[in-house]
């Protein structure tokens, strides 16, 4: 017992004990409890019913970030491949990342870097990163659902007045980069809630005071006498429940509050930064650092999956300027997000994935850019109970292909499902033709779970 606490206070993690137990036991310890065996057992029992729900934040680096300028620096390679950046050490001995991520380097023990993502299609859209599938898969019946839609279907909302799946990406002129995740064949009911559409509008009162709305509700209650038990399909009961929720949303508006950063401590906002001035945006999305903060607030309000699109990384020219700008901003916001989640004891429940639709060419072109390279890509995972402080896979000396442990895009997706407590080997969704469909066809990354 004592040794567990000692381990914790020395910030070391013994392999024999799952990280989650530490945090929960640790939480009690800081709460000035006397820890006895019963408490530890309770903490163990709690593991299956965590206080904060399992969730995912999907950070899409639209355009395809240069893998060799983020987490897989090739300092041994010739200069036309090596580029401008130097590697820096991180808080995990032996793991080096690019110099534009000095803050993140302090959190590498909580992150896992995958240097050998394969299976990318050379196509500028977010579909693979959000679902693991391509646009063509099952297209004739609506396409495969994204992770958020599938989770919405499988798990439903945590809090009745908060949608389970929220997409923050603002429309960009290359619209595929601001995709929030398609519901595919699951249909509109599982589409991401977008805080810019009529869905949000309907959460604000229009020309009707709250008092009048209450009057209307009272009137409705006195008139709506149809017994809902005559409907055994459950739709009537669902409608009553949703009507009650609607009123709750309009009066309490947990979601609206979560989206409203004026309710956040200005110091916290400053830690995330605002990502301005927006540079290199062109037809992509802006570097909205604030979206990462909103994502955290949404998860706290009960959202299960938040997707967002961060910057435009399609660096056919000025690659190093793009990485310096976007990377620096990402470093600030992402490290703040990881800190916040860790500090709130949520990090083991919230998975963060940061990646783009492909990697970039080893050879720097004459515009100081890097071109498309779908042979290999990279991803950074943090939280969600994964075993951090790891690098999975490797590319060859020039960063051209996965030379060790290729990790398929769907393995990353399967890991996210795993972190959500969804077993991809047994969970199926029923498509409109009645066929059971697995979520993905690969398994979670064994090294991480």
């Amino acid at each position, binding site marked *: 017992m004592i040794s567990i606490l000692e381990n914790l206070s020395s910030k070391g993690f013994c392999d024999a004990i799952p990280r989650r137990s530490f945090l929960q036991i640790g939480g009690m310890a800081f709460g000035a409890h006397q820890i006895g065996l019963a408490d530890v057992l309770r903490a163990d029992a709690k593991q299956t019913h965590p206080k904060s729900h399992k969730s995912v934040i999907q950070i899409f680096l639209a355009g395809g970030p240069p893998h060799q300028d983020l987490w897989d620096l090739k300092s041994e390679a010739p200069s036309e491949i090596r580029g401008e950046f130097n590697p820096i050490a991180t808080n995990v001995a032996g793991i080096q990342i690019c110099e534009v991520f000095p803050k993140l380097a302090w959190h590498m023990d909580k992150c896992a870097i995958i240097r050998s993502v394969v299976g990318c299609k050379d196509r500028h859209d977010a579909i693979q990163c959000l679902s693991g599938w391509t646009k063509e898969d099952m297209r004739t019946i609506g396409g495969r659902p994204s992770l958020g839609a599938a989770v919405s279907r499988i798990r439903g909302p945590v809090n009745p007045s908060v949608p389970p799946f929220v997409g923050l990406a603002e429309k960009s002129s290359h619209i595929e980069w601001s995709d929030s995740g398609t519901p595919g064949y699951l249909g509109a009911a599982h589409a991401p809630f977008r805080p810019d559409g009529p869905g949000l509008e309907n959460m604000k009162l229009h020309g*009707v005071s709250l008092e*009048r709305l209450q009057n209307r509700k009272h009137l409705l209650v006195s*008139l709506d006498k149809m017994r809902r038990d*005559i409907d055994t399909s459950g739709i009537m009961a669902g409608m009553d429940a*949703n009507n009650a*929720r*609607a009123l709750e949303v309009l009066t309490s508006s947990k979601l609206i509050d979560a989206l409203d950063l004026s309710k956040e401590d200005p110091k916290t906002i400053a830690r995330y930064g605002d990502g301005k001035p927006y540079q290199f945006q062109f037809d992509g999305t802006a570097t909205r650092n604030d979206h990462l903060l909103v994502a955290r607030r949404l998860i706290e309000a009960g959202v299960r999956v938040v997707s967002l699109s961060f910057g435009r990384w399609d660096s056919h020219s000025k690659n190093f300027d793009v990485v310096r700008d976007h990377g620096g901003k990402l470093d600030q916001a992402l490290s703040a997000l990881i800190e916040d989640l860790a500090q709130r004891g949520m990090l083991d429940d919230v998975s963060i994935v940061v990646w783009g639709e492909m990697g970039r060419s080893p050879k720097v072109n004459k515009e100081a850019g890097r071109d498309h390279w779908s042979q290999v890509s990279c991803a950074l995972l943090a939280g969600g109970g994964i075993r951090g402080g790891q690098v999975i896979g490797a590319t060859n000396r020039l960063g051209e292909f996965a030379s060790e442990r290729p990790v398929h895009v769907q393995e990353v997706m399967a890991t996210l499902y795993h972190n959500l407590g969804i077993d991809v080997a047994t969970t199926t969704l029923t498509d409109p033709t009645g066929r059971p469909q697995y979520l993905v066809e690969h398994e979670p990354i064994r090294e991480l779970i």
Partner: protein
Amino acid sequence: MKAISRTPQGILLWLSWVLATLASSYGTTLGDEPEIWFEPLVETKPIFLLGSDARYQVLVSRKSENSLAEDATHSVIFRTQPEGIIEVSPTGFIKPIANGITKLSAEHRSGNVAERVVEVQNWANDPMVDFANQIVPVFTKYGCNGGGCHGKAAGQNGFKLSLLGFEPHDDYSHLVKESRGRRLSPASPEQSLLLTKATGQTPHGGGARLDPNSHEYRLIRRWIAQGMPRSDAANPQVVSLSLVLNDRRMQPGSQQQLSVQARLSNGMIEDVTRTAQYESNDTEMAETDETGIVRVKNQAGEVAIMARYQGQVAAFRASVPLAGEVSDWPSPTNSVDDAVLKQLRSLNIPISGVCDDPSFIRRVTLDLAGRLPTFEETRLFLSSTNTDKRNQWIEQLLSSNEYSEYFANKWMVILRNRRTNPGQQAGSFAFHQWLQDALAENKPYDQFVRDIVAASGAIDVHPPVAWYRNVTDTFGRTEDIAQLFLGQRLQCARCHHHPFEKWSQEDYYRFSAFFALVRSKDGSTVDDPMIYSDFGLARASHPRTGQGLEPAGLNGPVVSTHEYEDPRESLVDWMTQTDNPYFAKTLVNRYWKHFFGRGLVEPEDDLRSTNPASNPELLSALANHFVESKFDLKELARFICQSRTYQLSSEANGLNVHDRKCFSRFYPKRLSAEVLSDAIDTVTQSATQFEIVPASTRAVSLPDTAFASYFLTVFGRPEASTACECERGSDSSLAQSLQLANSKEMQSKLAGDTARAARMAAQVERASSEQVEELYIVALSRAPNEEEKTAAFQYLESQPDRRIAYEDLTWALLNSKEFLFNH
């Protein structure tokens, strides 16, 4: 030993060669039967077990206190005389232990005893294990070849099995030859990777699946020790499954052991009770486990349990009656009622009364015309004393434009009338108009289908060609036509034999051969193609064998077509034959669901043999009527709407409140997105403006699904991306509630200057009682009752602004369940 267990380790594998002839022999009337007997009752020959692998599940039935037959298999004590020939588990599962003849007796605690002779032969002589018949089913039962494990297309960790064991030859090669033969070691069978992995002795991603003490383990070990013999093509194959007991009337809360027999191609019969897999078609009514025990719950109704083994299926039907006697049965109006009443009588479910006139006019107008009855129509109808007024109103609706508009909307969606770019607009509008005209002139359904399936030419000349533009590949066409018009889902069979379906890949490709010659060439524009049938012989290539297959209907004869014929005409000829087993049934089931919210078969376009109708007699009666009327769609709608069943009240009578599929009352259904949008416009006296189309266009008469509308989207309007009606959502959601309760759109409709509320507020000289009544009749087709009047008047008086008060009253009615549902 106890043979029943829920864990895989406890299950025994068995192979029994039972030479008993198992005629379907369940007697439903009880009279001269003994008090207790072995099933089947008429059988007197011994149970014959051949070889040490033989197994047999006996069934014992007894006459219960109320003289009904009930299962006693698990509540009797089994004895054998002499002992030592067979071993019987307490659940009636027999395995041989020596050659000989013995008498098996089953004694009930009432003292009644049933007897049966069992004979064991060839006990010592183990036959060669047959890979396809004995080993592959083990993989299926334990999930090894499932879609989540080694059965998926890519296999699992380098080891692949065919999905659910439909390709035993491939499985043999994968096991025996692949990976340099390291998976099996005949010299030391226990060390075979297959067994060490399956038992978890070697790390296995799927965990330990097989108990080293199980019959299955010994069987696989013996097969390896025998040198892994290939399946001999001459070895018998499973040709059908049968049940010792096919159906039974069961008391709520009771259970029934099943006994499943596979008939082999050599005429032998093998007990597969413990290898077969079971599935209940309604788990709220009955559940089943892997040993074939059916447990019914406390809900009255009918339920089917499907048993499947080696691609064959058999179904057990249980009917669970309500307790008590119902004496008060109404007289039927037509043969719809005959069949419904017959089922309700047998299940003792009391029927609700006939609905009142307001409910009727609202219900039938919504169902036939997709709209609310108007204020005037309702007033006239309610005040009429004509005894035939319901039938007359049905006729009036059937001849209205709204009928054809509404049903064109229904067909347009499943015929996938989409528009993905503006260039397709002329085509999608033309196809919709064609559908509307065909429905208005009541084109016979066989002709309607022919015009679509065998469509050729340009869209502006023959608009159904648009279907071929919307569904572009042969696979899609094959699958859509089978699902739309024949209620058969072929999607699975494209790649593999589906375990619940009878269709093989050959069936699929033969069916697809009808579409093999369909060609498209540019018409006036890219979006306006010409569809034609090429010259040549219609053939489809079998994806595995490469064999060129001639076209054939599903379960139909092979069709020889000539080079100059359009094979699709032959397809329609076969489909529309009056004795086609699927064509009429699929349509009447689809229409039944339209009116009742629930198909006799659910989902409505999935009429596979393993998904039986909740009332097969009714389905046949409807189909016969439809065929006899020469495929008259209006007559079918009329026939249904005139029935007493359709006109039943949705109010439950206490005993039928849980009935979900016997139609003892009308089940409420939510208005569809389009109908609801129009209904709100009607009540508020406002209009929704859609792009492109004229200002007065209603949502139900929109020609395709491309019209942007947040309202229609959140209320589940389908995208028309599949041929499945299931695309239309009817679930409730928070977004819907918010849209109705608090959207700008709703508020502007309620509060507009020309909206009903504003008009009413302006009619200062009109009595509020009249106005409230008008609102009720327009929204709910009925006058308010006293309580509602009081509540409404109170509200009107409490509000200083009359217009606001009427807006609020209208809002409350539009948000009420009575408005949102057709009931």
